[in-house]
């Protein structure tokens, strides 16, 4: 049985239950129970209509729970007395779920967890494994998020930008356990793109595809980080690059530029170069100018300094860097790289060591330590 296919159905089924009168929390719980049942039953007895099967089982689970709860009896009677509504537009319901799970009253971490469960159809255990926390912790995070949402109306129009930020957070977390969060984020963003006509959804989807395409080349066999310039471009997944380029071009053609499209355009220019030397750094700098204009993000300015260093030489890069706050994450790493290119290995080695101390992950720390060691080694002999 295809788990992704099953998970694709989850948000629509939750939507149907809510449309029939279930509250979001109960609907979400009932659909989770139905999914667990499906995993058990479907391999031996595949249904002809998987979605219909899930709706029926989830609805019965919901009614069972409501029935068991004496306080809810009156509402149950009311629900059972009502005629079943006819077919509903599942697409709208699903879209509402994306917005609800990314509601501004939730913290980003809660939005991410709830989106993976309610929209993504992952189990609490899978989400807990992916984020390396105990299962009860993740269960608490999800149920708190659902409690926070209990007073929120389901039919409020949502903010696409918030949904995209949540999906990008999922993508950026890397992955562990048996769920690949990057692939999951791509699946959800594709899904969103099929329901909504928005240039930035295309921008984000393209950005994810282009980064995902490079993943096999980003780490060596021993788990080492391989920087972009040293990656074996033969290992990049060309079909994802082709799709990403096509998606970003279609988005850009709509003339509604946003930050994800600008980032995707940069990623596309990297992906387009067959060798490092063929990289079109001049155009990349222009896109970073757009990105800085759109976001005024210090991280975008830092990346721009790297691109300027490649396009106009390390001195120009260092000049761009001098205008930025040295406390920025990875500032020292960029400075180290530019100083080395400028022919100052002593300063570069010192800065690599400094950068390693504040690296956010072990693989990045190890990479930066190795860079420092490489520069220090010849001078020690």
């Amino acid at each position, binding site marked *: 049985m295809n788990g992704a296919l099953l998970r694709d159905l989850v948000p629509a089924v939750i939507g149907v239950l809510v449309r029939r009168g279930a509250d979001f929390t109960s609907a979400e719980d009932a659909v989770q129970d139905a999914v667990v049942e499906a995993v058990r039953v479907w391999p031996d007895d595949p249904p002809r209509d998987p979605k219909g099967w899930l709706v029926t089982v989830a609805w019965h689970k919901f009614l069972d729970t409501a029935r068991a709860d004496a306080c809810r009896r009156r509402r149950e009677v009311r629900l059972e007395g009502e005629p079943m509504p006819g077919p509903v537009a599942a697409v709208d319901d699903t879209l509402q779920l994306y917005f609800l799970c990314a509601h501004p009253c939730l913290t980003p971490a809660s939005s991410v967890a709830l989106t993976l469960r309610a929209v993504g159809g992952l189990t609490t255990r899978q989400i807990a494994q992916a*984020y*390396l926390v105990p299962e009860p912790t993740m269960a608490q995070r999800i149920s708190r998020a659902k409690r926070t949402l209990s007073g929120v109306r389901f039919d409020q129009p949502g903010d696409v930008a918030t949904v995209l930020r949540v999906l990008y957070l999922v993508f*950026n977390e*890397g992955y562990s356990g048996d769920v690949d969060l990057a692939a999951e984020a791509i699946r959800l963003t594709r899904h969103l793109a099929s329901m909504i006509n928005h240039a930035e959804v295309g921008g984000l989807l393209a950005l994810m595809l282009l980064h995902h395409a490079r993943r096999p080349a980003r780490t060596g066999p021993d788990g080492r*980080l391989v920087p972009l310039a040293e990656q074996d471009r033969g290992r990049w997944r060309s079909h994802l690059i082709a799709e990403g380029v096509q998606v970003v071009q279609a988005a850009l053609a709509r003339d509604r530029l946003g930050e994800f499209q600008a980032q995707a355009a940069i990623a596309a220019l990297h992906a387009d170069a067959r060798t490092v030397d063929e990289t079109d750094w001049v155009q990349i700098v222009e896109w970073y100018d757009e990105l800085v204009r759109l976001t005024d993000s210090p991280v975008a300015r830092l990346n721009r300094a790297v691109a300027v260093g490649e396009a106009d030489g390390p001195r120009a890069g260092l000049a761009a860097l001098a205008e930025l706050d040295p406390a920025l994450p990875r500032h020292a790493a960029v400075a180290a790289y530019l100083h080395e290119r400028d022919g100052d290995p002593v300063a570069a080695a010192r800065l690599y060591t400094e950068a390693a101390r504040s690296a956010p992950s*072990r693989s990045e720390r190890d990479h930066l330590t190795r860079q420092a060691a490489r520069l220090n080694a010849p001078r020690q002999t």
Partner: protein
Amino acid sequence: MAKYLLLKHYRGGPAPAVDCAPMDRWTPDEVDAHMRFMSDFATRLEESGEFVDIQALAPDGTFVRYDGEGRPPVTDGPFVETKDLIAGWYIIDVESWDRAVQLAGELSAAPGPGGKPIYEWLEVRPCYGIPAAVTE
């Protein structure tokens, strides 16, 4: 979200704000109140979805060192009381550094003799994260 280690020391760290007597000189009620505070603190972390791990370490233990091929490792015997011992740790998964510091501050206010906060020093250390999918 990011994970942080809250490290409790028996000794070491900056000069104590309050030099209170060791716990075996407290009244049983004071000890109970302290233990209840710790247990409530853990429960609150579980309820807020920020709990990862809590361990209390026994004071026994030893330093171990490789002493060359084919030779047994060198140990320095049981710890003596004057060494800086780690009493235990909490690992939390929280939204920000500020939240980690806030929780450590609350933990430092665990009640001691007379029900007054013990002002214990706690070391707060970020754990390395999962490498981000996008870095270059």
